[in-house]
């Protein structure tokens, strides 16, 4: 499953402190060297590639540099060093006018604390990015109504942010970031400020919208469960550096170090392991019931166990092998596959 690269960054650094640029002149400093010289290494030597239409989740504890990284990617913060390529164009070389152009039409961002303008109604907030571009009122209101409907807030157009619940406010934030139809969508802990139940609901909503729109997404979270539910790939950050970039499944099954293992330890294997991973070679004729290889075990478990016989696993229409009820049960009870 290879996608064309939409957004890439190479060796991006962001150091805070008295002489960040000087520190980098003599090669890459170690974490200890950065700290010893009185600097903070908010982002250290990060390189990554995000494919078109991919949900790329950046996960890490608070203070690990996620917000700084995503702000470097959108150039809200000027990185100390590195390259950021969006559709092959180096953003760090773009002029201010060019950056305004790119942000107006090709990027959207959702914020942890919503960042809604308190003096504008829902309709005006959502239409704001269009207003800034000089779109005439009728056109921008029509577009705003469309996205408001997309996030399920019809009927609230005249409300002010303070009259809405947290979940509703974030729906406005999402609608607003989608109003200009950006290709690239940044979300910085969009659901962290919400109650757990609302958070679940918003995650479903987010997946629904993404199935419809197929944006390229960089999603920040500190919640590993959220990362697993949403991600195509997850990047784990620690002290400003990437520790591991992998699919949820690989992360759980092959953690790069103890730090990652600590995150994955409590995760139910069945939620991340896919049928493709536990498929064995066919033991006889192909079974007539077939399931896709990307399906996660917990979704398929009930059917396979009630069938009580092997089930075929297919990828792109090709039969890959079969999964036995025993293999499913082994995953469910947490035995290593």
């Amino acid at each position, binding site marked *: 499953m290879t996608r064309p690269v939409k957004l890439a960054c190479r060796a991006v650094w962001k150091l805070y402190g008295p002489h960040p640029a000087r520190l980098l002149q003599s090669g890459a400093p170690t974490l200890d060297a950065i700290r010893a010289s009185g600097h903070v290494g908010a982002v250290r030597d990060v390189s990554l590639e995000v494919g078109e239409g991919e949900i790329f989740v950046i996960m890490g504890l608070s203070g690990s540099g996620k917000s700084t990284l995503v702000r470097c990617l959108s150039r809200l913060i000027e990185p100390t060093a590195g390259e950021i390529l969006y559709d092959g164009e180096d953003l760090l070389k773009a002029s201010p006018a060019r950056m305004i152009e790119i942000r107006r*039409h090709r990027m959207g961002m959702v914020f942890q604390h919503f960042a809604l303008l308190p*003096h504008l109604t829902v309709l005006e907030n959502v239409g704001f990015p269009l207003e800034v*571009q000089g779109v005439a009122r009728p056109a921008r209101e029509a577009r705003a109504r469309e996205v408001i409907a997309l996030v399920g807030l019809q009927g609230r157009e005249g409300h002010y942010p303070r009259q809405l619940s947290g979940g509703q406010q974030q729906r406005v934030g999402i609608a607003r970031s989608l109003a200009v139809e950006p290709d690239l969508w940044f979300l910085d802990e969009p659901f962290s400020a919400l109650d757990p139940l609302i958070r679940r609901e918003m995650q479903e909503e987010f997946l629904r919208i993404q199935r419809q729109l197929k944006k390229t997404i960089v999603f920040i979270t500190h919640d590993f469960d959220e990362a697993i539910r949403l991600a195509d790939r997850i990047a784990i950050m620690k002290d400003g550096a990437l520790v591991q970039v992998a699919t949820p499944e690989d992360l759980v099954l092959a953690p790069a170090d103890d730090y990652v293992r600590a995150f994955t330890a409590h995760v139910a294997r069945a939620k991340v392991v896919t049928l493709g991973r536990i498929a064995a070679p066919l033991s006889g004729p192909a079974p007539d019931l077939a399931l896709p290889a990307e399906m996660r075990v917990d979704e398929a478990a009930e059917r396979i166990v009630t069938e009580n016989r092997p089930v075929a696993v297919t990828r792109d229409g090709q039969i890959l092998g079969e999964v036995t009820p025993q293999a499913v049960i082994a995953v469910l009870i947490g035995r290593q596959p």
Partner: protein
Amino acid sequence: MTGAMRGLSALAFLALALLLARASADLPPGLLWPPEALHLPMAGWISAAMAWLTDSAHLGPVSFKDLTRGFAALVEAPYQALRVLLVEGITEGRGRRATVIVPPLSWLAVTVAAVALGHYARNLGLGLIAGALMLYLAVFGQWESAMVTLSSIAIAVPLGVAGGLALGIAAWRWRGVERALAPLLDLMQTVPTFAYLVPVLVLFGFGPVAALLATVIYAMPPMVRVTLLALRAVPSEIMDFAAMAGCTPGQRLRKVMLPVALPDLMVGVNQVIMLSLNMVIIASMIGAGGLGFDVLNALRRLDIGGGIEAGIAITALAVVLDRLGQALAARPGGQLRAVGPWWRRHPRTALVLAVILATTALGYLIPALQIYPKDWQLTTRTFWADLMKAINVNYFDQLEALRAWLLEYLMIPVKRFFLALPWPFVLGLATLAGWRLGGLRLAALALALTGFLAATGLWEQAMTTLYLCGLGVVLAMLIGVPLGVLAASSEAAGKAIGAVIDTLQTLPSFVYLIPVVMLFRVGDFSALIAVVLYALVPAVRYTAHGLRGVAPELVEAAVVCGCTRGQILRKVRLPLAVPMVLLGLNQTILLALSMLVITALVGTRDLGQEVYIALTKADIGRGIVAGLAVAAIAILADRLIGAAAQGARARLEGAA
């Protein structure tokens, strides 16, 4: 260093000071007050610089004088237009023989407009309050003066707000501007207003425009500060959003930052309104007519009733403007728009216009509609005069005994003590205090400021100022802190005391002088009482605020430990409230100093008097030097106490 050692060293200093004061009779003359040789002729320099500026300075082809004149004309035009609208009407001929062709807006029309504006801004309740206060102006015969004042306020407030906003934005945008502005703002707020009345007077001449500009200068600094703070306080996520939406820097400011900061900015607008009205009386000294002139006049004639009525009228005007401004800013938008003909869509505007037309037209037939008739006016003058007379007749001996006792046993000894302190000792003490509280930098600042005082040649006046101010502040704290404790002790007491304090604060400072002078005649004693009354407010307010701010868990912990109410207060709440109380002390000192300049009117002999004399003689150099001397004392007190408060807070947080 422990608290006990601190206390001991303070005591030792006091003892030393007392000894020195005793011995000073035998001191050689150069040691008591700074010798002539040390005086710098600063007044002369400033006057000369000013003279050069007004007589021969040029900016390109335009002389500085033309520039100021031109600027004055620019301000004058809208002011005159407002006066025509509100006060004079369109007239033909001059002076007594002028005949009115079109009268100004009638009292009825202005009152209805106030009601309509209140209704538009919030609801009918606010409209009725505004209308009632306007009606007060008419009923108590203050109408014409109030409209004169309103004309100048209506120009000064927008100018102050716009200027403050522009400077604040510039300071936010460029650090250099911020650095340059900070000390200037400090000075503008600490130099007594009288002091810069003088240069304004020289540059713009005696008259309403000079008064207007002085008002703007006085009222603008808080707006600058508030703007800077408000822009800084815009959440960083909102700033990020503005960038991500592709705002240009101008769009970001206009469409995002200013609207988001609006609630905070309104605090600044409120300050500008309040300070402008505070300035009304002082500005009348250089030619602003209106209510301020009435108060000043009443004060000169010792007409207590007249002074209080005009003073309350200023307060009424302040309340109306403030409430309407706040409500307009908080007005929820996006209401349904009415449809139909013009007068249906704008019923309030239509109503006001109708009333204006009707009263103007009918006013030719029935003058009562145009000008509130004299026969319907009420006055409380005789009541106040009788009250004063009654007090004076019945309690003269007691009042006089109180005055004599306090003068003899408190004020005169303290004054002697201050005047007998040798100046090198004061210099050393200030420097030492600066060093102990804030390190070398503060010590250097204290040395420089005290040295400046010595070099002005105004040492005696400065010491007199210190004595009056110090005594006023001590008394204000002695009365104010217990009141603050009381206010924080129960909700009812808090409400009652809060109401009294709010009223005290909105009364223009001059109004305090009137009853005091009526009871105690002119002199230091009256000045002291006025200072205490005026400076009391922050002492009460900050104490109460500090006590209320103590974390409830700490109080609960004390209760669980079995503390009595008294113990909780003494051992937990008061110590934790110390930084707040110190801030209150700071404000009290600043207010006392600003009041001292006003009490010069009742014949004190301090720096305030020096400024006042300079004003009456239009002596720029003398006025500014004396004003800077007051500012030096204010800044010194502010920094020393600020450092002490910070130290106290650091100790508390370090311990926590």
